[in-house]
């Protein structure tokens, strides 16, 4: 597991009542006892940690938030996008 994934799992654990040690990339977020308000806090924490902005709306079902791995992929792609737009500017 790379650095981004490790950091994201740490953030998830920090926001869980009973953090589990068995969080893997294919773990669905729905298995983690995370409620809607927790998710808003987690997204905020991820944004703050990586200096990015994630377009997340609690009213929409988003595939990007299906599993731990999909969150990691989303974060990586946003980081890559902001890097390339930074280079262009």
């Amino acid at each position: 597991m790379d650095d981004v994934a490790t950091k994201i799992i740490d953030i998830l654990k920090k926001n869980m009542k009973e953090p589990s040690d068995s969080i893997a990339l294919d773990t669905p977020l729905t298995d983690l006892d995370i409620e809607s308000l927790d998710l808003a806090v987690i997204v905020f924490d991820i944004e703050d940690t990586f200096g990015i902005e994630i377009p997340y709306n609690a009213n929409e079902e988003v595939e990007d938030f299906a599993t731990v791995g999909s969150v990691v992929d989303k974060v990586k792609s946003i980081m890559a996008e902001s890097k390339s737009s930074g280079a262009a500017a």
Partner: protein
Amino acid sequence: MAQPKDRRRVVVTGQGVVSSVGIGQDAFWSALKKGECGIGEVTLFPTEELYITIAGEVKDFDPKERCQSKQFMLADRYSQFAGCAAGEAVKQSGLEMPLQGEKGYRAACIIGSGIGGVSTMELSYKMLFEEKKRATHPLTLLKTIGSSAAAHVSIEYGITGPCFGVVSACSTAPHSIGLVYRMIREGLCDLGIGGASEASLNWGTTRAWQAMRVLSPDGLFPFAKGRNGTVLGEGSGVFVLEEYEHAKERGATILAELVGYGMTSDAADMVNPSIDGASSAMQIALDDAGLSPGDIDYINAHGTATTVNDINETRAIRRVFGNAANNLSISSTKSMHGHCLGAGGGVEAVAAIKAIEENIVPPTMGFNEPDPECDLDYTPNEAREREVTYVMSNSFAFGGLNAVLIFGPPPA
């Protein structure tokens, strides 16, 4: 449930409204009937670094023109809205104001706000922390406090009885109105001004709401399949409530009777509403009014257009109304004026009373495709004529704080 015969009855003799679809009840109601939307791009503050850039702003509000006295020029926008709405309500009531002597002590003034003068606070923090000013404006504190709207209005109209603000997020207005209703009913007062006001649209507040991930970037579409969150609004709804005999004696024109009030708390979760809390508030209001579910013609729904509220409210209505739910007209006028937060239930109560007056149900706009989980008649996209005798107005706030009002026709 039969009510005691000697119970004091409470009527509405004046109402006032400030909203993104119009200032004053005539402009407001005419817009709602036509399905006009007051939601648009934010103009009150720069939206840099925000991805939510729409709101239901009150346009062209000039306090010099809209408020009675000079004291309101030194008040926060939220108090000015309350002053404007109270002015309209008092004028319509025909009461001789300011009240004199003993009469003042027999009157209440309960005007709440979800958050009070938060834009004044934001400005003062900007001056202190960003511009490194040595002091804030001397009126910062008085403008900010959540009781200043109530205090300003009491000063304006000589109300020397109970006066304070109420805070319960998006249920603030019905809680305030309901309190005045109970004070009059129980004999503490003979009349009162009740309502709420909100003017919290600024950069910091929008940023805070944005972080909760419940705002829609493109519009407020209650109960529709494509709904994707709520849209912040601002405004005020204020009423003159009066004991029925008191109003009759002075020959006042009665707009409606406030017949029922129910309040409950979910005591469960800060953001996820419960069917139990919402449905019990509706049931308590019905019991208070001595009405059956079949007596209600129209529900002005809380209808915030978040995924969870609209399903929960639909299920709660189904639980309380049973088969009678199929004959109800329901709408969320938030689709037009936005979510006025603490003032929401006040602004919406004006729509409820106008619906009784004109036998017209205002529409739910932006209703393009039904959601299978929201299976009631939401009056999609067009106002409807139907006989409206009793109206229920729902408010369900963050924290699980529920308040429901029921209005009926003027006593025969």
